[in-house]
């Protein structure tokens, strides 16, 4: 019985990783860059949501919309100011700029909202479901996060395969130069990708802080790295891979804490990651691309 509770706990944190990883993997798949500032956009989203509910007294859904709006604008701004001028340069250059953006957002958040932690009020008002005499408890947050991440996964898959913009994104991801020749506006497509990724980050921020209530300027960075790990784990660039990677990472983390060692759970989680990458070098659902000779 206990094992199921741990499984649920794992899925709970795992689905949070998954939804962050979805944003990561989409931006990576299309813009071909590791956006290390993604975790910090999540943090900004959570702060916006916090402010809207706590200072303006608006309902939760309004705070989520506000967070999405602010993060979308922020994402487009960051992309335009910091990433766009570097298009066509080695991906490492953009990576370092992304790190600069990450430092910037963290420190800006500290100046705006101070470093004192805030306790995020969960957007879920549902009472937890208690099964088997309270032996297994499923919180509303778990249901919501799993639901939303599945929704986002399906939505993104449909979006990239069915819509015009989505197809343009896939084209840009496959071959940027060819896409350009086919009349696709590469710059606008990448900006759109960042806009969507950032809006997703806002949702992820709200869900992260609903599950883990402590909100600080550094809140996004560690889950951000975990989610990046999850995205690679599932096969970076693959949308279902990010989902699977996130959930599995959460479950492995919880199980290693529950049954192996709490002290060394970080080491265990990352060792499992390494082992899996050795067996499947492109991640669980990633495509192994053989270079043409």
């Amino acid at each position: 019985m206990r094992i199921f509770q741990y499984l649920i706990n794992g899925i709970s944190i795992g689905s949070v990783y998954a939804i962050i990883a979805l944003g990561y993997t989409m931006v990576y798949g299309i813009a071909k860059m590791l956006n290390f500032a993604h975790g910090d956009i999540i943090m900004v989203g959570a702060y916006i949501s916090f402010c809207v509910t706590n200072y303006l007294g608006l309902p939760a859904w309004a705070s989520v919309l506000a967070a999405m709006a602010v993060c979308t604008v922020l994402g487009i701004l960051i992309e335009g100011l910091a990433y766009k001028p570097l298009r066509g340069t080695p991906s490492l250059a953009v990576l370092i700029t992304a790190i600069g953006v990450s430092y910037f957002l963290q420190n800006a958040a500290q100046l705006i909202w101070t470093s004192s932690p805030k306790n995020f009020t969960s957007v879920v008002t549902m009472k937890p479901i208690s099964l088997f005499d309270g032996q297994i408890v499923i919180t509303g947050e778990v249901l919501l996060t799993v639901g939303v991440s599945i929704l986002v996964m399906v939505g993104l898959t449909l979006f990239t395969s069915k819509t015009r913009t989505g197809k343009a994104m896939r084209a840009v991801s496959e071959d940027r130069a060819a896409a350009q020749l086919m009349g696709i506006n590469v710059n606008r497509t990448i900006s759109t990708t960042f806009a969507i990724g950032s809006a997703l980050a806002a949702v992820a921020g709200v869900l992260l802080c609903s599950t883990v209530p402590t909100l600080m300027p550094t809140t996004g960075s560690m889950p951000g790295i975990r989610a990046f790990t999850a995205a690679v784990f599932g096969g970076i660039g693959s949308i279902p891979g990010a989902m699977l990677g996130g959930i599995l990472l959460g479950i492995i983390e919880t199980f290693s804490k529950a049954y192996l060692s709490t002290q060394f759970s970080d080491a265990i989680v990352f060792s499992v990651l390494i082992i899996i990458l050795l067996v499947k070098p492109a991640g669980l659902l990633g495509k192994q691309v053989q270079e043409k000779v």
Partner: protein
Amino acid sequence: MAMKTLLKNKTTRTNGITYLVVIAVFAVMQVLNGAGLLGSSVKGYLVPICVYISLAVSLNLLVGICGELSLGHAGFMGIGAFSGIVIAALLQDTIPNDVMRLLCAMVGGGILAGVVGFLIGIPVLRLRGDYLAIVTLAFGEIMKNIVGNLYAGIDAQGFHMAISTSKMKLGEGGKYIINGPLGATGVQKLATFTMGFVLVLFTLFVVQNLVNSKEGRAIKAVRDNRIAAESVGINVTAFRMKAFVVSAFLAGMAGALFGLNYSSVTASKFNFNTSINILVFVVLGGMGNILGSVISATVLYVLPEAMRGLQDYRMILYAVVLIVVMLCTWSPKFKEKLSIVSEKIKSLFWGLFKKKEAGTNE
């Protein structure tokens, strides 16, 4: 004659300039220090700057020259630091000479880091690109987690090591060397600026020589075109491994010097952020550009310190500077504009100069 041909060679010349710059800076610093003109802050920067230069140059071997993205360089630094501290503590009585003990600690730390690099490299170097990056990141985290829970100490019975306090039983008069999350405490400070300078020279010597040898050519060939390199008989995995191990070894040596420069060091110092910082030095200095790494490590280390006066705003400004410098040095558009401006200034300057010249001629 030989000297002349040597000077003609462009790579030898750049290498020479790098050595000269480092030696000149060292000499100036020594003179200033001797004259008592250096404040405690500047004196305090000297050793860590040397350490970070070595780290940046060694990472440049991996990232710039070999073309592999590593996000776990601080992990090797950490291995070097902690093993160096343990070695120095164990050799306390055997080798009374501080310099010799420091050397032993650095070499020991380097070797251990190199061995760990080798062991990790065997499975890991089958991966490429971002997957290699994530595995090196994972390695850094594993290292941090393990060392953060490591207890080591010496007593009358000798050396003890354990991974929890309860298992760690030191006898009477025993002394902890590494104390779990407290890290290494009560470390005897052995590091000196001169040793840092020697380390920088040694790192430059190894990396630059390697780059200019057949090994370095092979490493660069693997980066430029893996398939072609294989086709001319180069064992790609072996060369990635060589670069990886040498880089880890040098990082370990730098780590040992770092660890022995402070009375305490914690495992959390060697985290993802430190790895990223070293990577920033490399990328900003120019990938594959050794002198660039030396300069950018120095400048970027001093920069946040120099901005202390800005108090709470200093880190946000550091971030802004970082982004702006990246845009200035990499953005194609900006570079174009910059070159136009510099052309204009040049022509303006030359124009003035020529006028003047013309004037004097008349």
